[in-house]
């Protein structure tokens, strides 16, 4: 079945497409190799320069995940596996091959959950300040509890420069406010408990058999760089790099540096990745 796509008159705005049975809000921009951008739990800014930078080197698909933004929640969807399987259907229905998957924070977790299930349609994986695994002991919180913090407290942890976060929500149009409310609800639906991670993910990361790059804002205080190093250590052959003057959202604070690292990684000849032994 072909994806039914209707695009709004503003070509930069997110269009709406029914893919694999779910009506999605999706930004689709650029030409060339497919790049799937998986947004963090606070969604996507259509005007963010980051997507344009990626679109110079490929065709960017940036959907709002089911339940987020203006995207429909699929029937029965309640955990991260539901989203990961959905994206495998999504790639199949759009018949995308050699996809570069770029995920930020929650989107990075989702990218890893997709990749442990199947990398058949993936070429490479970029995880940026990703949540998704448990590293420390049971009494140490690896991932800051954003549900227990005020917007100002969250900004202090998320941004290298917290003034980035200042905006007056009361002035935003109703559909944007609804998206903010839906993003927050969906983050809890998929990440309330276990908090923003899947206890099974760590032991399955060895299955990832495409090259993986972990990018981390050096000032990230939601998930600290050491968490990222540990995460990368579970993915065969993965590389870890810091991004200066960025916190938990390098794609927002340092879009050029982040995109540059991603695109350079995309162009590298595939290094040797230890593949699974076949018995």
């Amino acid at each position, binding site marked *: 079945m072909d994806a039914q796509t209707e695009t709004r008159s503003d070509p930069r705005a997110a269009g709406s497409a029914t893919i694999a049975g779910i009506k999605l809000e999706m930004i689709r921009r650029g030409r060339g190799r497919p790049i799937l951008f998986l947004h963090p739990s606070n969604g996507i800014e259509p005007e963010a320069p980051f997507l344009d930078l990626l679109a110079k080197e490929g065709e960017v698909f940036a959907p709002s995940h089911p339940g987020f933004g203006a995207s429909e929640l699929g029937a029965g969807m309640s955990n991260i596996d539901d989203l990961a399987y959905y994206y495998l259907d999504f790639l199949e229905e759009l018949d995308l091959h050699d996809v570069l998957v770029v995920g930020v924070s929650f989107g990075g977790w989702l990218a890893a959950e997709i990749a442990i299930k199947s990398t058949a349609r993936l070429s490479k994986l970029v995880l940026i300040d990703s949540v998704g695994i448990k590293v420390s002991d049971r009494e140490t919180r690896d991932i800051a509890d954003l549900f227990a913090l005020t917007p100002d407290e969250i900004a202090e942890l998320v941004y290298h420069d917290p003034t980035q976060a200042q905006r007056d929500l*009361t002035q935003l149009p*109703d559909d944007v406010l*609804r998206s903010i409310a839906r993003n*927050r*609800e969906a983050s*809890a639906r998929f990440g309330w408990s276990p908090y923003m991670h899947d206890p099974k993910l760590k032991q399955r990361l060895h299955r990832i058999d495409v090259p993986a790059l972990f990018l981390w804002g050096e000032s990230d205080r939601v998930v600290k760089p050491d968490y990222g190093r540990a995460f990368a250590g579970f993915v065969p052959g993965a590389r870890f790099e810091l991004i200066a003057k960025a916190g938990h959202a390098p794609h927002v604070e340092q879009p050029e540096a982040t995109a540059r690292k991603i695109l350079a990684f995309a162009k590298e000849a595939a290094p040797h990745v230890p593949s699974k032994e076949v018995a």
Partner: protein
Amino acid sequence: MRVYHMTEQSYFPAWEGDQKLRVDLPNKHCDPKIAGDLFHRYYDEWLLADDLGLDIFINEHHATATCMSSVAAIPLAILARESKKAKLLVLGYPLGNRMDPLRCAEELSIIDVLSRGRLEMGFVKGVPYELPVSNLNPVQIMDRFWEGHDFILKAMTSHDGPFNWEGEFYHYRHVNVWPRAYQDPHPPVWITTSSKGNAKQIAARGHVMATMGTGYASKGTYDAYKEQRRAMGEPEPGIEKFAYLGLVAVGSTPEEARRRGELISEYNKSSGRVHPPFANPPGFLSVDDNARLLKAGSKRLARLVTKDGRYITPSKASVEELVDAGMMFCGTPDQVYQQIVDFSDAIGGIGNFLAMMQAGYLSHDDTVSNLTLFAKEVLPRLKEYRYTPREDAAAAAE
């Protein structure tokens, strides 16, 4: 009208200062010797209420200095044994916030048996700030609530051996509750709400509906309940299907009542002292409600409408304003009687008046006097209450 005495069993000694009282107040601020004395005091007050012909209302909250009753089954069990005649209302078991409805059914059945059928079984979804404590997901809390409700009633009414339950949230393979509940088919079910949608769901099941301190806005939920019953072709429900919680301060003089009212109204100032993110966890409110709150920004405050259409904020309101808004009933016995009757007639007829006769900083001696005066001077008249709709006052309702 039946009248229930309620106290939240607060640990008010920790309220001084401006620290938050819910979720994250360290329990080093709780002296267990003082807590023990307070528990015995509150239970003594309930036993006095029993002697005076009042019923008993118990609730449950978690990780808070505003209410030490973190396991409602414990006071219920003690009072099931020690009280004599009073109905034992728990309002309620926070089903959206409890992991194990089988355990709920077992606890409630024991209490019903122990009290020889005096239990009234209230279910609530749970307050927002306690989901971070239980760690149950605020998303789908009402779906979880209704599955827990359905399960408990099935568990209490199944008498022919184990049954199977494989629901969306709960899984059991051999459900067989011993002892079975004393009341047949099961203890009366009460549910709280402040929304018309939930009011209709409660009405559809014929349960008792309670509104808690929501003032004249309660009329909308009472009307929704009645409308649902009419839509089902059922007769107009009696007032025994409706309950309302208010603060009560009676005095032998207006001055004495007012002094008590001021001590009790500290409840309103303590109740909302919570770190803001805990007050609205994601998914607890609907997307539309949350979008509206974002639009309103910091301007938003809890508010009640008075009978003459003014808006007040309970945490900042005077005793007079709380009385005008139907949140408090304060005065001499004659005045309090008239306030309750007028309010009840305005919102649609209260059959069960849930009276917080201890709250805030009200001392034991004042509580004893409040209870005694109410039971001797107000209760006998309220027992004769007949609902008389009052269109004029209703017009002020939201």
